[in-house]
């Protein structure tokens, strides 16, 4: 270690590159200089890196299959590809400079068109910023298996291709369409499962096929006949029946895909496996959705620190620094609410601003900061403090804990209260003493995935009658589901379930059923 530091000190003042073009040697030298700063100065803890140089066309490929290097085939990826292709060729939209994959080794894609400054920025951002976050954040640790993801995707791709061969494109497409529609309802939000081991998954699939060959679903075979005495049965007994049933199916169940995989009566083994694949992939991405802002904030903070350090050490020229600042300021730009470019908070901008703000609180706090953040104000350990935060928070809790009054003032945040019964909107709070906590709570809720996404649960199955499946949407604050889409999605559930499905909207506070939506299978009469 000491020799390395010595040699890197010796290199100080020596420019890594002088022109905009890059070759593999400069790329390697630049990487080494960045790594030296990331490991020895910031003391980041990262997976081994694999930097892959790709063309813009390959970037488009990767883009369309949700950023993964390999993915099973589905028309929706083709749709994304043709759309991005048109947008890119017409110049309406640039391509991402990089894509990074939460795997071990951590794979970052960089485009060959990038200048060397951009490559340096991208490596600092992805190969160290995101990489550190992936390896250390508790959500990723709990939910994802970085070791196994690529092997698992390989398996998924092969498995689905095999199903297409055996059962036809249409049959597989039907299951995938339905599964994709339920992908967001395919994770366990409140109780996290055992950390998945994807290598075990592969083995398990084989066992399931064997098991299903050997047995049949006892649950459905032994359906009790509806008994006439139903009406006479006293209240208590009936309730007990319901409880029994719920216990039998493990209800209520928030993971719709899991429920269907385990309990849908007429699905084939391969259809269940496809549901499981989509569920596993959905779960792999779940932490990314919950930490988007922090993850980008962390990566931006890291690249900013590294590029500045490179400049301070004399490894990059002033010109290169200007170029970097140009890219950087475009990435962390936040439009104001009345700007035509405004489309919500930019996770890069908010994330970077918060990280920089925490840095400031640690190093140079004001009295206000000392009052609000007694634990960290003036501790003079900005990177350690940030690393602690990166490891133990997600967007929602991070904002709730760390958003400072100063940042709220700087970004001039204000909170709108929108009651549908009222003819106008009301400014509920602004960036002042009365408002700080309200604004902060509201912003945190906006980043809470369980608030953003509807609260859906399987609540009951009528096993004694027509096998109707009951799904409940718990309506908070009268916010309904997008109706047309819900109807289509309900159709998909019905298709997997094979019998009627009822979607009930229930008020969160009163528990009263507000409205219902039904799906009846077309072939009910004939079956």
């Amino acid at each position: 270690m000491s020799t390395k530091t010595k040699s890197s000190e010796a290199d100080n003042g020596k420019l890594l590159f002088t022109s905009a073009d890059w070759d593999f040697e400069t790329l390697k030298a630049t990487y080494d200089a960045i790594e030296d700063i990331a490991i020895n100065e910031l003391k980041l803890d990262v997976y081994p890196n694999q930097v892959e140089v790709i063309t813009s066309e390959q970037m488009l490929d990767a883009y369309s299959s949700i950023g993964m290097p390999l993915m099973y085939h589905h028309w929706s990826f083709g749709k994304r590809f043709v759309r991005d292709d048109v947008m890119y060729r017409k110049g309406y939209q640039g391509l991402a400079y990089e894509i990074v994959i939460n795997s071990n080794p951590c794979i970052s894609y960089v485009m060959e068109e990038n200048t060397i400054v951009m490559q340096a920025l991208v490596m600092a951002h992805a190969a160290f910023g995101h990489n550190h976050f992936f390896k250390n954040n508790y959500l990723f640790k709990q939910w994802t298996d970085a070791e196994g993801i690529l092997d698992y995707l390989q398996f998924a791709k092969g498995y689905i291709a095999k199903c297409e061969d055996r059962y036809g494109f249409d049959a597989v497409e039907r299951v995938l369409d339905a599964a994709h529609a339920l992908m967001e309802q395919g994770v366990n939000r409140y109780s996290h499962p055992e950390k998945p081991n994807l290598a075990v998954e592969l083995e398990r699939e084989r066992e399931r096929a064997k098991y299903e060959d050997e047995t049949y679903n006892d649950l459905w075979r032994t359906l009790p006949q509806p008994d006439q005495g139903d009406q006479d049965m006293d209240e208590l007994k009936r309730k007990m029946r319901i409880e029994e049933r719920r216990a039998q199916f493990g209800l209520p169940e928030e993971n719709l895909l899991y429920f269907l995989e385990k309990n849908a009566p007429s699905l084939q083994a391969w259809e269940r496996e496809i549901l499981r694949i989509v569920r596993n992939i959905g779960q792999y991405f779940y932490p990314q959705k919950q930490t988007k802002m922090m993850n980008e904030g962390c990566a931006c903070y890291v690249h900013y620190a590294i590029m500045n350090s490179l400049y301070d050490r004399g490894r990059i020229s002033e010109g290169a620094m200007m170029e970097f600042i140009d890219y950087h300021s475009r990435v962390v730009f936040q439009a104001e609410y009345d700007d035509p470019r405004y489309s919500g908070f930019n996770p890069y901008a908010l994330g970077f601003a918060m990280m920089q703000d925490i840095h400031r609180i640690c190093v140079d706090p004001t009295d206000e900061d000392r009052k609000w953040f007694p634990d960290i104000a003036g501790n003079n350990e900005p990177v350690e403090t940030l690393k602690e935060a990166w490891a133990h928070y997600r967007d929602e809790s991070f904002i709730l804990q760390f958003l400072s009054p100063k940042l709220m003032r700087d970004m001039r945040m204000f909170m709108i209260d929108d009651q549908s019964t009222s003819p106008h909107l009301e400014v509920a709070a602004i960036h002042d003493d009365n408002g700080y906590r309200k604004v902060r709570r509201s912003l945190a809720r906006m980043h809470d995935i369980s608030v953003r996404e509807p609260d859906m649960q399987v609540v009951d199955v009528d096993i004694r009658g027509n096998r109707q499946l009951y799904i409940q949407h718990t309506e908070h604050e009268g916010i309904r589901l997008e109706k047309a889409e819900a109807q289509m999605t309900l159709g998909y559930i019905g298709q997997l379930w094979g019998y009627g499905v009822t979607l009930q909207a229930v008020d969160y506070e009163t528990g009263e059923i507000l409205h219902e939506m039904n799906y009846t299978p077309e072939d009910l009469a004939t079956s």
Partner: protein
Amino acid sequence: MPMLYIVDRRKNPTGKSLGNRQRFMRRAKAQIKKAVEDTIRSRGITDITSGDQITIPGKTLKEPGFHHAGRGGNRNYVLPGNKKFVQGDRIARPQGGDAGAGGSQASPDGDGEDDFQFTLTRDEFLDIFFEDLELPDLLKKSLKQTTAFRNARAGFSVEGTPANLSLVRTMRNSLARRIGLRRPKTTEVRELEEKIAALQAKAEKRPNGKLTKADEDSLHGLLADLEEAKRRMKAIPFIDPIDTRYNQFQQIPDPNTQAVMFCLMDVSGSMSEQMKELAKRFFMLLHLFLHRRYEHVEVVFIRHTSRAAEVDEETFFYSRETGGTIVSTALEEMKKVLKDRYPNDQWNIYAAQASDGDNYSNDGAKCTSLLAEDLLPKCQYYAYIEITDEREAEIFAAAEGETALWKAYAPLASHNPRFALKRVTKAADIFPVFRELFAKNRTEARL
């Protein structure tokens, strides 16, 4: 300590999304087909060969899910960039009620209903174009192929594969270089060695084993020369990489001739839009076919009622004329254009005539003689397609009815192999005409 691998993936096969694209095309097939048909309608005959951007409704490609509705209920949210608001201010709801976008609070999935625009490749476009023409696969393949090439000699180059090494050129360069750099020849070296050997032999013969002063000097001189010669030989190679020359070949498009295609059509009131659409399909296919076979294809449009005129494509398909129908006027016009612009020895001439079969009753004989004497001898192929309404076609079939033009042409077709006659009621009927065209041209193509 983390390790780094830098991997160059640029050489990896691209088109990883091809499978996805194909699945997407399958999914949206009905919409794409409709969009392609619209494009064909609006497109010129001659630009069928490029791919095209098409737009299909986004609705069919919807990927639904359970999402919150964009409006309604009680919600609160934070915005950046406050300028003048204080707590308790009331803001008018962004205008638009239930129709317009909600200002800053536009729903995130608002673009879901937009039309979906993308570009078809040329092959995809042609596949869909061919679809209801019921072409056999072999023909589809040959139509989609671009020009064939043949290798022709094109001088010499300094780079190439060893198999193409031009020995004569290489040796010539080698020789020139060796002379230029004064590389000693092997024979010269041998001569030197012989002389040295002779002198040394002479020395051995002498009693003291030593040469005379003069001979001694010349021996030293010769030894020095030999050493120098050997050094030069070593330094200047017999064949140097700069000597090598390779035969170079160039890809020459083949065949390389020109054709003109005449489109003749009756545009009188009795031709409906659908009939013209069918005719257009036929002309397009013919053009595609000719384009494939000939480097350069010109198209001449002649329309007629009771008078005929050469017009541009737009007018040909889309403007209406009134009046009777005298087919011979069109044939006269074609004869005139042929004489003026397309001499028979320089052009391959193709003609396609589309009509509903009406003709002025006394005109039949004139048409026949024009065709038989002036036009058919010059044409590679002359196709007449008679377009009839599907319902009418049934009546005709029952009544054995024949149109005026058909009656006039039928005898001519029976003994002239370059003349084809077909009745077309739907797109699928078009191809048989081409089958004949292909079969014939295999044997008597004039390149």
